[in-house]
């Protein structure tokens, strides 16, 4: 039966119901996560570039290392989070007597990554607007000897008005799209682990809502 991404977004219940009759295949979810990873890497390139400029004066070449590390880290982290989220839901579902292969769970969670792609694109656009306005403190090579100076410079960067606005907007966007993904994951967990809707909602909402609340807490302390 032919399914579309529109079905996944609008009627995830029907989408996963139809998906379960087929053999598990993580190629399409993997492509979705790959897309999310590429966009996350682009976003990390912008944010990492900021940190790289901050540290550029300390050591020649450090700028490239920081940027590369950020890009590669964000790309790999997307896949790691995919596996971790799948493992978390898989583990939680055991409490409710869930049954099914882990690959099926990976498949369902991978599909649920689709809203993350949209969310990261929006964050990328927001970052490209706000980052040029961020004023980066200049650190000299001697600053590396004084951790307090490094700390002060990092604080100054984080407290830059444009940076603060960027952090707040992207955090809000991330929470919204995480909840959208959670909405999809609930149905994915339900069908991939054979749980009731209530049990699946508990399995997904606890970590998703918990992470959202943590993100908001972080916003209040920076």
């Amino acid at each position, binding site marked *: 039966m032919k399914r579309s991404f529109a079905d996944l977004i609008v009627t995830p219940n029907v989408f996963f119901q139809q998906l379960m009759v087929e053999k598990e295949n993580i190629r399409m979810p993997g492509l979705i996560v790959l897309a999310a990873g590429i966009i996350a890497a682009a976003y990390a390139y912008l944010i990492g570039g900021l940190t790289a400029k901050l540290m550029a004066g300390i050591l020649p070449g450090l700028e490239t290392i920081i940027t590369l590390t950020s890009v590669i880290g964000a790309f790999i982290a997307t896949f790691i989070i995919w596996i971790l989220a799948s493992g978390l839901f898989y583990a939680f579902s055991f409490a409710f007597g869930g049954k099914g292969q882990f690959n099926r769970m990976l498949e369902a969670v991978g599909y649920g990554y689709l809203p993350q792609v949209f969310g990261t694109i929006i964050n990328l656009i927001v970052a490209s607007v706000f980052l040029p306005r961020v004023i980066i403190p200049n650190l000299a090579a001697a600053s590396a000897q004084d951790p307090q100076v490094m700390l*002060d410079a990092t604080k100054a960067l984080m407290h*830059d008005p444009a940076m603060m606005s960027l952090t707040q907007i992207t*955090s*809000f966007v991330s929470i919204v799209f995480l*909840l959208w993904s*959670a909405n999809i994951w609930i149905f994915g967990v339900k069908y991939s682990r054979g749980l009731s809707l209530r049990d699946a*909602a508990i399995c997904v909402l606890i970590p998703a809502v918990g992470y959202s609340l943590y993100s*908001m807490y972080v916003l*209040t302390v*920076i």
Partner: protein
Amino acid sequence: MKNNVFNASICLCLLVISMTVAANAYTTPESIVASGKVYVSQVTYDPAVFFTDDTGTVTIDVTNGNSNQSIVLNHATFSDNNIRRMSGTYDTSANIGPLQTRSFVFSVAARASEGTYYPTFSLSFRDADSLWERTMVQVDNTPLELTVQNKPDTFTQGSKDTISVTVANPRKNDVKNVKVEVSGTGITATPSTIFIGKLASGASNSVNFTVTPAQETTLDLAVKYNNGDNIHTVTTDLPIVFGIDKKQANPVISNVQVKSEAGIYHITGDVTNAGLEPANSVIVTTLSPAVPHDPYKTYVVGALKPDDFASFEVTFSADNGSTIPLQLSFKDTDGNVFTSVQDVKVAPGATSSQKNGDTNLLPVIAGLIIVGIFVGGWVLYLRRNKK
């Protein structure tokens, strides 16, 4: 043996007699008249007036006033007990042609106290008697006068001030290579050496220089000059004592207010010039531990005339509760930079403006509402689905 001694005595007598006859052989009435026309045309001392123990030269020009007869000279010397000749005499025969002048130069040393002295120059003619000439020279120990013409009422540490000094020559002769040297511990003088050159008798010359004292000290002023080839020095000291310039600009910060916005602190206030002179290039900024931040890392107030005031604003990031040094700097009319630091307490409660709270909490509140709606919606959906 006796015959030999006798013969030798006879020979010696004949030799003396023959030499005496030879010496007087050219002395004729004409030669005596001719030698009478030889005269000392000029006597020049260098220096013109000596200090005690100075060395110098005396140049004596001898002119042959005969228009058609040369004069042969045997010996020339210069002598005095006080103005002592240091060089040798002229012991070889020399000829002065008709209407010609010949110079005799002697090195002399003034081994005398102040006064006027009359050394003698003597000249022996081959065909006549000698010429004697008394010269006059003075020994005067009056040095150059060094006067501080103008200096600031008070000196300030690190402040550049101009000092004017006058060098006067009260001596009867000119001096040369006059230069003023300025020195002192912890003092930067510009220029440290000022060359004046020749200073005529009775003349004076004023020079200006700037000094920037780093500490209270003594300014050493020295005038060095040459009297002839003799180096002499006149020194004077000028105490550099710091004080408060009663007229200087005095910018004062007041009406200080601190607020924070998005993690960036803003300090606003007024700067008033409470001094009597203008304060130029007034700049306000923050020092460590504050990290100056745009848009107002530093605030250039500009020039403030006496009693003028202007507002300022500086932005920075810092830890809550810390004390921030606020630095105010300005320049006086000479470009000297003065700085003052005033501590400002950044109290967390008093400094966080309402806007700051709104900015931080708005996305959090929005996020909570979204999460609440999402969870609430699912709870309702599950209840309805259960029924």
